[in-house]
């Protein structure tokens, strides 16, 4: 096999096997640090050896064997020095390792441990991307505009707390599962959103690597917990947003709103998959959670061939349903945006203005007002609202869009 082929095989194995490898090693050796080091070393060995030796017939098994051997070597070296210390730091794991086939379960343990609520949210995100996603520390640091050393510290500290406070390495009990699953989904949605609307004035308005990673991990959780409706809901939501990525930013680097997007540029395959998931949840006949309702709202948008075909009454009804689950002012703002299409900008503006208190510092509140005021011909007020929105917007493409709209005002 060519060198390039071997390298591609190693990279594919990394995508497929990293989380499984970390999970298996953690289960076997009771130590996240050791698992991470041994897995990283095994992949480095693969990259070094496969081009010359050829890709092994079963890359996953080769990696497990290699990493286990590396971990044992490391343990032997360390045990000579600090036998008792290592013993004391074993992860708490209250049932014996399962049969080798129960891989799904192993990865779930890893995910739930990385997303434990006793860890700070930013640590959960970092730990999940490192241990489940296999991103390197420099990659994660870049994605969140944090110094590499600081990101490394964050991950190290989180792992230290897992050990010292005995955060258990297991899947939560059925009684705790819904709350804990929603904690995992919050981490994944945060990763997705950071990729979707990059904060800061960096050159890339959309970070495809982060959205893709969030989708990949959500797919993994979906495969592991197929009966959890909110997992399917979040996956559908991400797919339907991701499907519009190509149409969302103009070649000039400006945000394109949903109404102005070239719907032909939407990804039909992702939309079909998203719609399938939404239909699956509807058929389940179980009261949906927030992600499922958000996915349904997006499915109404992606079902419309032209923006004028959009079923706005359906969208407003879904926002009503969402508001009952999540009484946040942001939901109320999005509902008001849909109301503008159904009942006109004046009705909508009245609803938006009622949100002035809680949303005064939120750029989308001012951008919405600016647009409604523009449609009502109140140019001067619209301009002031655009100014506020531009000042608060954190994303380069959005700033470019808002600036043009403001400058187009008569």
């Amino acid at each position, binding site marked *: 096999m060519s060198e390039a082929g071997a390298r591609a095989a190693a990279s594919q194995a990394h995508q497929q096997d990293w989380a499984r490898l970390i999970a298996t090693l953690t289960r076997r050796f009771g130590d996240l640090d050791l698992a991470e080091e041994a897995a990283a070393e095994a992949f480095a060995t693969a990259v070094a050896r496969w081009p010359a030796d050829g890709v092994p017939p079963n890359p996953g098994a080769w990696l497990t064997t290699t990493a286990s051997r590396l971990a044992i070597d490391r343990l032997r070296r360390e045990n000579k020095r600090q036998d*008792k*210390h290592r013993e*004391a*730091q074993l992860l*708490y794991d*209250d049932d014996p390792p399962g049969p080798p086939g129960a891989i799904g379960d192993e990865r779930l343990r890893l995910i739930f441990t990385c997303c*434990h609520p*006793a860890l700070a949210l930013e640590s959960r995100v970092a730990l999940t991307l490192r241990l489940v996603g296999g991103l390197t520390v420099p990659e994660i640091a870049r994605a969140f505009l944090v110094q590499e050393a600081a990101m490394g510290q964050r991950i190290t500290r989180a792992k230290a707390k897992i050990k*010292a*406070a*005995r*955060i*258990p390495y297991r899947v*939560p009990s059925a009684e*705790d599962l819904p709350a804990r699953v929603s904690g995992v989904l919050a981490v994944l949605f945060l990763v997705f959103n950071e990729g979707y609307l990059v904060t800061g004035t960096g050159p890339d308005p959309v970070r495809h690597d982060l959205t893709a990673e969030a989708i990949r991990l959500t797919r993994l959780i979906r495969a592991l917990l197929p009966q959890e409706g909110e997992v399917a809901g979040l996956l559908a939501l991400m797919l339907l947003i991701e499907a519009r990525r190509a149409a969302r930013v103009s070649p000039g680097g400006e945000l394109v709103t949903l109404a102005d997007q070239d719907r032909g540029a939407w990804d039909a395959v992702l939309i079909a998959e998203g719609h399938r998931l939404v239909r699956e949840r509807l058929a389940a006949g179980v009261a949906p959670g927030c992600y499922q309702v958000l996915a349904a709202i997006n499915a109404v948008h992606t079902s419309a061939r032209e923006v004028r075909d959009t079923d706005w009454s359906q969208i407003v009804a879904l926002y009503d349903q969402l508001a009952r689950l999540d009484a946040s002012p942001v939901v109320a703002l999005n509902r008001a945006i849909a109301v503008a299409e159904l009942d006109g900008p004046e009705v909508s503006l009245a609803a938006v203005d009622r949100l002035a208190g809680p949303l005064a510092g939120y750029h989308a509140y001012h951008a919405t007002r600016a647009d409604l005021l523009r449609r009502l011909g109140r140019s001067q007020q619209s301009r002031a609202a655009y100014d506020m929105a531009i000042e608060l917007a954190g994303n380069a493409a959005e700033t470019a869009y808002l600036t043009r709209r403001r400058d187009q005002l008569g």
Partner: protein
Amino acid sequence: MQYLLSVIDDRAGYAPQEDDTAGSATPQEMNALDVFNERLVADGHWVFAGGLGVPDNATVIDNRGAEAVVTDGPFVESKEYLGGLWIIEAPDLDVALKLAAEGSKSCNRKVEVRPFLSE
């Protein structure tokens, strides 16, 4: 594994008083605490528990130098202070957090969960 559950008092109404009862539990809270403590004993989690007097009655002593220096009052003045504590035995943090949640409910105060060094 043992955890320290610190009861954090942050009641705004707290003011120094003649006796040592400011900030201590109401009869209702005491009842809830008794029920909770009995359960801790019955389920094998109990190691120790106790309520503390107000921080004003604390004395700090520093004998690192040539002479012991005695200071009236707590070592740090803050709006939040330690009102009491439990030491519990729990197999892992999830169990400790569950117990702390019940403890917080029964004494109507925030609770910090902190592991003891395991060696």
